[in-house]
């Protein structure tokens, strides 16, 4: 069972990172959004330092949302998903394994890139560290919640934008707590631990709910 889980996760990550897999395109989109904001908001470094963490978080959220339709699409198209469902690996663990692999290929690069892009915004080091930490804790939640939407729209061919629209309301709490932790550090030295802990809770909770809901959704979409 563990072997099957790890091999599905590893295969998902490897296929996504290979050329033609589109895994690092999400990173490129993240960079584009981050670069666009100063053009829109103006070069005032104080303002950018204040809204920088929020921009990083929104850009990470959008990048994750747009990459979601790739989560199950390739496997559905070439029949691997049907083979996975026939295997002894429970569909819930299958969804969890796919999310783990997908996050490794798309979410983790965002976390690593965030401090680097944070230099564009002149964010102070404490807030930058906290943005990276909250992204590390929160992006798995985004992938997991997104997996529910991706699984629901499996029947559709071009479901990308619709999946993003469906998943967005459910990812708003993750965004709120992710940014609220950095605000606590930036505006006044108020304790930042409560939002971080709630973020962990959201990731853990979605780690339980998403596989169950996703497996039910895959079964409903494929029959």
């Amino acid at each position, binding site marked *: 069972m563990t072997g099957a889980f790890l091999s599905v996760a590893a295969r998902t990550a490897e296929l996504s990172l290979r050329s033609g897999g589109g895994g690092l395109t999400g990173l490129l989109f993240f960079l584009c959004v981050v670069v666009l904001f100063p053009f829109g908001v103006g070069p005032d470094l104080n303002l950018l330092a204040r809204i920088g963490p929020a921009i990083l978080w929104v850009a990470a959220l959008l990048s994750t949302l747009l990459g979601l339709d790739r989560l199950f699409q390739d496997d559905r198209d070439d029949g691997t998903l049907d083979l996975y469902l026939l295997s002894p690996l429970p569909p819930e663990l299958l969804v969890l394994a796919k999310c783990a692999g997908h996050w490794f290929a798309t979410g983790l690069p965002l976390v690593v890139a965030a401090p680097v892009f944070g230099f564009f915004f002149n964010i102070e080091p404490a807030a930058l560290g906290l943005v990276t930490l909250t992204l590390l804790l929160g992006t798995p939640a985004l992938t997991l919640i997104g997996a529910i939407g991706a699984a629901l729209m499996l029947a559709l061919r071009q479901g990308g934008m*619709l999946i993003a*629209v469906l998943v967005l309301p459910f990812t708003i709490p993750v965004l709120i707590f992710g940014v609220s932790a950095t605000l606590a550090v930036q505006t006044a030295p108020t304790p930042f631990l409560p939002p971080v802990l709630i973020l962990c809770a959201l990731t853990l909770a979605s780690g339980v709910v998403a596989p169950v809901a996703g497996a039910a959704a895959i079964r409903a*979409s494929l029959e």
Partner: protein
Amino acid sequence: MALIDFANPGRFLTFAGQTLPILRVLTGLILLIGLFMAFFASPPDYQQGETVRIMYIHVPAAWIAMACYALMAIAALGTLVWRHPLADVAGKAAAPIGAGFTLIALVTGSLWGKPTWGTWWVWDARLTSVLILFLIYLALIAAWRAVEDPGRAARAAAILTLVGTVNLPVIHYSVVWWNTLHQGRSVFRLDGPSIDPAMLRPLMVMALGTLLLFLTLLLSAMRNEIHRRRLRTLRLTQAGAAT
């Protein structure tokens, strides 16, 4: 008369056909009485003056918006667990109605907020969570329309509805858990309502009227949905027979 007896769409259509005229008359009557009580037979607020009368539309609309989602969640359970055929129809029919009531609550609340708080909108916990509820309603309407086959669409939307149910307690307790500009609980409290009876009575009448309005709209919408599905089946059969 078990719930399974209502599973027959034809039987439901007869039931709806008989109940709807009575419901419509009752709704109109009670809403008229409620509106009269709200605008003429109740006192102005000591602080807000006459603006408080928006409450008699805003609060029942918000209550029905949440009750509608609760009904959709139960219908989603009916679809996924029991494969009850009318649960699909109820869920699909209720989504636009719930979205409408949420929109009424948001707009009337905004109109109320401008003279009393000085702002059309504020990002506090109650307003934000109700806005998220509105977005979830829209997402559900999109999910229903995305898949062609009604049975598959029903299962996909049902799962999404159940995932979104977590928002309901967040909305209800948002004024308790967070420091909000929106007023705290005045009616559904363990100590009983803190609102004056002269205002509670019109509020309850309007709530009853709005509930009846919701039920009337829901039954009509469910009837339309059943007819729509029959039409679709007939068209498919006709297309199949023509080849």
